[in-house]
């Protein structure tokens, strides 16, 4: 079932890493955004505060997606010869 070549596994691993690793933070950022919109709708005066806190929380969630991206890039672009030793 598993392909013999390291190249194929590398490609598949990089693709799956970034696909899964970006889907869940995307979902969570959308959820945070929608909650922030609701809160602003209920209390338009606090929109500055809400916006600042929302951006903060989105930064944390996006960082997780970036970790996944860095791992995918490392899988893809670190040459095999360098890992062999």
């Amino acid at each position, binding site marked *: 079932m598993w392909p013999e070549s390291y190249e194929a596994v590398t490609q598949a691993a990089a693709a799956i890493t970034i696909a899964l690793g970006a889907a869940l933070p995307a979902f969570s950022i959308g959820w945070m955004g929608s909650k922030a919109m609701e809160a602003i709708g209920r209390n338009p005066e606090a929109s500055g505060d809400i916006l600042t806190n929302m951006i*903060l929380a989105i930064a*944390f969630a996006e960082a997780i997606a970036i970790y996944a991206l860095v791992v995918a890039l490392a899988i893809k*672009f670190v040459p095999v*010869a360098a890992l062999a030793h």
Partner: protein
Amino acid sequence: MDNIMATLRTPKGCLGCLGLVVVLIALFVGGLMLGGIVNENYHMPEISLAAEEIPLPFELPFFGHSVPNTLPATWLTMLLLIAVSFFATRSMKEVPSGLQNAVEAIVEMFYRFIEGVAGAHQAPVFFPLVATFFFFILISNWMGIFPGFGSVGLWAEHHGETVLVPFLRSANAHLSTTVALAIVSVSATQYFGLKLVGRPFLRRYFPFFFKSAPVEKEKPAATGFAAVIGKVAAIMEKGSNAFVGILEFISEFIKIMSFSFRLFGNIFAGEVLLIVVAFLCAFLASLPFMALELFVGLVQALIFSMLSLVFFMMATAHHD
């Protein structure tokens, strides 16, 4: 409605607009023809996660025979920032004009923003470091999009094959730069906490040692089984507090990793994106992605400085 239809039907307006659209489409299709999708002999430039080393003809004391190519980019950023501040404050006038006026406007805008987040009392303490983070990261990100970054270099031997070593690479596309910035930020959190709050700051890492005198009202002395349960609960609470303290300590190091990887990942991924898009389509398609990179550079600078500011504020918040 009739006016619009009349304008559209006018040959001059119609022809010009149509001509522009035709030229753009032709450029895009021509770019696709010249790009990597169609030509098999056109190879994608080497993308390396680690910063490429520029071989030096002489030897430097710390770096040895080569220097990573993000270092000149960092120097350029520093040069730009220092030059602008030098020329803006050279002959300061009460009523500013020219460069001093522009710099004052930018600095004041950022100061107002920080004041809104941190409050007027603490903003002057945090502003210098946070603004330094913001402007350094912003300028180095935006400079990485300049023509010449990543394209002008020399050919060097690397693992047995010749690769292009660019002279300049976006400064934050090297993990060392971002880790250095992250270490400065987290160390500054500890420094501000210790300086502004004093010894009680260490309560977050060692909750059982430095806890202030208990303020609970005197409970009636429990007897028998309730007393034993109470003592067990107290011990477990101390244990879990100690565990929370250790977790807090570890999370400071995780913050370093998080800061650095967020910035590095965004900027390096942006570079890779620009390279790949320029490879796929020679003309025109890079433009929206360049705009995206401008935006991402600004947002990452903002997020780094805002998160640092929030951690400073959390470290110096007076609980009592």
